[in-house]
């Protein structure tokens, strides 16, 4: 017993538990991370640049872990550090987290698309998604900010016409009111759906360089695909069983991977 206590004390001395950062320490760490990121961009030595991006990522991670700060810009900066160091899995993961906190940030959207373009795995959209993309083109083709602006315009037009109708019903044709109301409702649904999707509890990202997807929750099951999944594949986690996660790809195919190969978007939020 004494030995256990002594060992535990020694362990605590060698690895002190992370203490919450105060504002000054957080600022200093943030400046260091930004400095390393900038320096990495200026060096011509790729290995040195890689090390500096790793160092920046480590500091941003500390701000999140020890500082307890949940901020879209911080997740975004961390995503950038991972992107530059070639870790597209963690880049996508952190851009998704940034997007959950700030869905209207166009830089987050742009960088997330760049990271998605750089990852190895490609998944075809299921037929129903392609149909939906055509039918609900405004939802898929317009940026969040544009949809929000259009929502404000059509909503204002609808309420103004409705107010005018209270005094001069004959001056406001029903089709005009219905058109503005319909468009405002469609845009409101689109924006609300975006918010719900950003907060999807089941969203996960493969962060391992390669993860063998299996047909069941054990190494004795056969691989689910001819190739392993690669970092950056975005999945939905349907179930967790032991050390395994039951995942679903965007095209609807399901598989099992080890928990350590996946990180949940919402886990750090």
């Amino acid at each position, binding site marked *: 017993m004494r030995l256990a206590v002594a060992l535990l004390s020694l362990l605590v001395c060698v690895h002190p538990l992370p203490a919450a950062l105060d*504002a000054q320490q*957080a*600022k200093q760490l*943030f400046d260091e991370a*930004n400095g390393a*990121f900038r320096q990495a961009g200026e060096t011509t030595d790729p290995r040195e640049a890689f090390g500096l991006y790793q160092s920046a990522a480590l500091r941003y991670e500390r*701000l999140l872990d020890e*500082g*307890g*700060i*949940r*901020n*879209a*810009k*911080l997740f*975004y*900066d961390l995503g*950038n550090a991972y*992107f*530059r160091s070639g870790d597209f899995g963690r880049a996508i993961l952190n851009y998704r987290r940034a997007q*959950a*906190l*700030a*869905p*209207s940030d166009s*830089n987050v959207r*742009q*960088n997330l698309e*760049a*990271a998605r*373009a750089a990852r190895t795995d490609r998944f075809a959209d299921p037929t129903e998604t392609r149909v939906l993309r055509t039918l609900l083109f405004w939802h898929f083709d317009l940026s969040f900010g544009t949809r*929000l602006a259009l*929502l*404000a315009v059509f*909503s*204002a037009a*609808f*309420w*103004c016409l*409705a*107010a005018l109708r*209270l005094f001069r019903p004959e001056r406001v044709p029903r089709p005009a009111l219905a058109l503005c109301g319909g468009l405002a409702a469609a845009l409101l649904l689109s*924006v*609300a759906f*975006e*918010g719900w999707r*950003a*907060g999807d509890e089941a969203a996960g990202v493969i962060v391992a360089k390669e993860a063998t997807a299996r047909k069941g929750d054990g190494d004795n099951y056969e691989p689910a695909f001819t190739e392993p999944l690669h970092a950056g594949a975005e999945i939905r986690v349907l179930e967790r069983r032991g050390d395994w996660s039951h995942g679903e790809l965007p095209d609807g195919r399901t598989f099992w991977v080890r928990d350590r190969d996946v990180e949940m978007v*919402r886990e750090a*939020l």
Partner: protein
Amino acid sequence: MTHGELESAEGGIAHNYEDDDALVDHHPGLGRLVSSPLWVVALGGPPAAYFGLLALLAIRRRREADPATVAAHAALHELAALTPSVEAGFASSLLEKLRAYLRARLDLPPGALTFADVEGPLRARGVDADTRQDLRQVFAVCEAARYAGGAVSGLTPAELQSKALESGRAVERTLGGAR
């Protein structure tokens, strides 16, 4: 070198955020969708203005539909706003406001009202005996004051106003909801 429209290059990532705003703790949720108060005003203002307008119109229509109630409330309000005074005109002003209230509330034709004119309709509509007795006293004191050159006897001007107001409110409680 050719001259033409400058095209945006595709791909690549945008700059880091280095402002201290990155160290402010945020929480996820639908509230984050609209990050600026300007958006809240742009999205919430028009419906709020519409429903405000609708409420004002409903109030106006209700008033137009029941002018007697509006007139009764206005008379009661004016009665409450009188300043108690020992001057000659106070008792007759107070009586005039009380008459205006009762005339509006009981749908009586214009003209000078005495307590005898209102007692029957008040009893018929369920106003209790105590309230009628208080009203009788107010009428009596005010009418006596008129013949006594404005001097109020038996009650102070403040007590007289308070009694008139309490009686009016008691009538309102009985008749106001019965319309």
